[in-house]
């Protein structure tokens, strides 16, 4: 069983910047069942920068709100084609918020260089919980 919805401008918190940001990034949230349990997966496709960062933050915040007991929140960045320091900050903020709520936040990056490069050169690979696939993220022990 699977639910999914699109993090489009209607679901944004506050007014969105307009159609340009929709062309730059698409964010979809889906609830998926795995053998290890349920996961809420936020999949980000496209570019994360100053224009689109608010939508990413809103989608992650909505994910936290909609998370059910025992579910794992996963952010899948494998389809991201560009990410900058604002994306890094959003990931750090989300990780810290998850730790305070004791709900693990897992980030999937595989070998996507646009995402891996800024994470590695700023040393955040020691701070963020990174996985190669959504399956790995869901099946990793808490």
């Amino acid at each position: 069983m699977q639910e999914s919805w699109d993090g489009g401008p209607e679901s944004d918190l506050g007014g969105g910047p307009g159609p340009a940001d929709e062309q730059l990034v698409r964010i979809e949230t889906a609830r998926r069942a795995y053998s290890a349990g349920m996961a809420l997966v936020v999949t980000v496709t496209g570019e994360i920068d100053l224009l689109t960062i608010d939508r990413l933050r809103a989608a992650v915040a909505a994910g936290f709100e909609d998370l059910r007991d025992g579910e794992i929140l996963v952010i899948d960045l494998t389809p991201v084609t560009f990410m900058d320091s604002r994306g890094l900050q959003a990931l750090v903020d989300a990780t810290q918020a998850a730790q305070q709520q004791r709900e693990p936040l897992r980030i999937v990056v595989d070998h996507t260089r646009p995402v891996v490069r800024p994470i590695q050169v700023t040393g955040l690979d020691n701070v963020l919980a990174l996985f190669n696939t959504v399956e790995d993220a869901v099946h990793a022990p808490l």
Partner: protein
Amino acid sequence: MITAACATRRYDSVGDTTLQPIRARETMTPAMPPSAHPEDILLPASSPGQTSRGQRFGYRPRLPESHGLLGLALPAEPISISVARAAVRRWLAEWSWPAEQLEDIVLAVNEAVSNAIEHAYLDRPPGMVEIRGAIEATPRAQRRVTVIVRDHGRWRPPPIDDESRRRGIPLMQACMDGVAIGQPDDKPVGTRVVLRSKAVPPGRKQC
């Protein structure tokens, strides 16, 4: 030492204007104010025949890319950042820049442009962000780029408390060989970021 021998050899005159020769004054080191002047490459000397458009942007728009130069002026709006990224990517791909270093340059330019758009014009009407780039030969017969991002808003000293910019500047420094943030020399308005890339092997413009 900033040199731009390639650009000056080819760019002796642009219509009515003449470029001054390079006067590189100082080696760029990270976090020092810019006193080298790669802008000398890109700004024509003022002359009676200069058009007001030429004076505003500093060069004729159509020629520069064929001579390893990049120039654009964008309104300080968030959508402009993706326009700048695409322009830098296109420019460097055309000059056969190695893919990984190309993406590092795009990332660094993105940071500088984003900071300008987010912070420069908060206390005044929105203005423009200017991006100028040049491909230069290095002393060891390699090449590198220098990209200058400039706005005309308020001067932004290096951030201490601003989280978003605090992460962006180390990212720029990791991607570049040198980053210099300072006030422009010609007038004390706005912020100028000078990005010097790592050196890469020589290459040709693709036909």
